[in-house]
């Protein structure tokens, strides 16, 4: 059945022929985390947008975010993991400069995960798209040394 599941592609198409967010994915391939910024509203978005949800402008800039953040909330899924994904799955909401980023932690011991711990960007390859572009998704991993962030819990909506 593995061929069958492969026919169901749960990953976004990332090339410029398929999405205006291609610059995000290009940067991700070189370990950089970008998002969109609306100069009119001075608002940063997450996830990246093609239209600002505040003013509906489509003239948005790309900005680079720090590649580290802190864990706001997490959960570890042992059972019911969709086919094609590893067990367990560690999901986390990571705060980076007031933005909340839903993600998955990889290369991480489940027992080491705590709210407030620092994580860093660690993109995961998820296979090629039909045009042969290697695709990545913005996963994170625990930062080395287990450094703790400050005031991890209370965050202001972006």
């Amino acid at each position, binding site marked *: 059945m593995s061929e069958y599941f492969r026919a169901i592609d*749960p990953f976004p198409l990332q090339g410029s022929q398929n999405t205006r967010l291609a610059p995000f994915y290009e940067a991700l391939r070189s370990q950089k985390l970008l998002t969109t910024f609306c100069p009119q509203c001075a608002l940063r978005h997450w996830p990246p947008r093609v239209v600002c949800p505040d003013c509906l402008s489509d003239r948005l800039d790309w900005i680079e975010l720090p590649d580290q953040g802190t864990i706001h909330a997490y959960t570890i899924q042992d059972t019911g993991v969709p086919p094609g994904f590893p067990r367990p*799955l560690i999901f986390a909401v990571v705060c980076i400069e007031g933005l909340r980023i*839903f*993600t998955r932690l990889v290369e991480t011991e489940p027992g080491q995960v705590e709210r407030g711990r620092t994580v860093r960007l660690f993109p995961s390859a998820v296979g090629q798209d039909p045009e042969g572009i290697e695709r990545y*998704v913005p996963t994170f991993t625990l930062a080395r040394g287990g450094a703790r962030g400050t005031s991890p819990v209370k965050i202001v909506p972006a």
Partner: protein
Amino acid sequence: MRRVALVGAGLSRFGVRAAGFRELLAEAGRACFASVPHLIPRDIEGMVVGAVLPERAAFQSHIAPLAAETLGIQPSKLSARTEHMCASGTAGIRYAYAFIAAGLADIVMVLGVEKLNLPNMGEAVLNMGTGVDRDWEACFGLTAPPSFALAAQLHMAEYDTTEEQLAHVAVKNHTHSSKNPYAHFQNGVTLDAVVCSRMIASPLRLFMCSPITDGAAAVILASEERAKEITDKPVFIRGTGQAVHGFSVSSLDPDYASWPAMKQAAGDAYAMAGIAANDVDFAEVHDCFAIAEIIAYEELGFCPKGEGGPFVMEGRSDYDGDVVVNPRGGLMGCGHPLGATGVAQAVEAFWQLRGEAGERQVPQAHIGLTHNNSGMGEHVVMIYGRE
């Protein structure tokens, strides 16, 4: 606006069914007609069908005409499918309600149906990922349990809610569903069994989650005038509210333990019905996971914020308590065939308010509430009454 009432209701058996998509909807539709002796399919002017995954699980779209044809209905005023993930059924009821209230139709069937179990369960699980944001969530393998687990984690951290309190929700609802011959689970469950069941997504264990279930449910809505011709016990829609604050986890209020969209939907429904939370005799709430029912007590106004855990432990959401929550057994006991769930909640309201709920009957039931969600930031509430 005209007043609108339920005049008929019926269910298929819920469970892992040896039956296809069309057979399930036929079973519920047939049961619904059986509840209204003098009504025939050709009397129905409209058909609305709540269904989420037929394209994936049954390789079938074009659902409303399929359902109408299956049941011998030829819609003359309204035919549509509603898809709003887990709230698709109630979205359908609101659609039919608005049409009838506006005078665009007099009598409409709303049917919810889902065939989720497939020979390969991996595919069934993967299908559930279509209900979250593919580009930014499903790409990590997200399905519903971990989303609601985040809410449980924060509720436990902020309000000292315990695993035992979460387990009590499961014990209560499985006890209720043991008296429901349509339910997926009818054997009850002990507290020990819940807290020892395997971990799905921390802190939610197997019995704190609703299962993957096949099933269908149907109701018939009519204008007040038409309803009174059809039955001497119509069940009126007294109020309704819906609010959607965000689709993806990243866009929600950062306090996942509070669901302001639910409070807003409930507030609008209460205001429309002219009632308060303490007027509600029973509530069918969306207990997709135990934490959702605890938060529902709080956001619906049955108890103050943060006190949902003690509320269930003290029996206040059970028979002889303040309000009977999930008398049919909820999603945990009955199962959760996505599109069918909201309609099945309406079916329970119909039976309870007509005094036809058998062993599960809530004494002196005058006002019933149903709550259906399709994510932590998306909620819909209905209020039903005998008058």
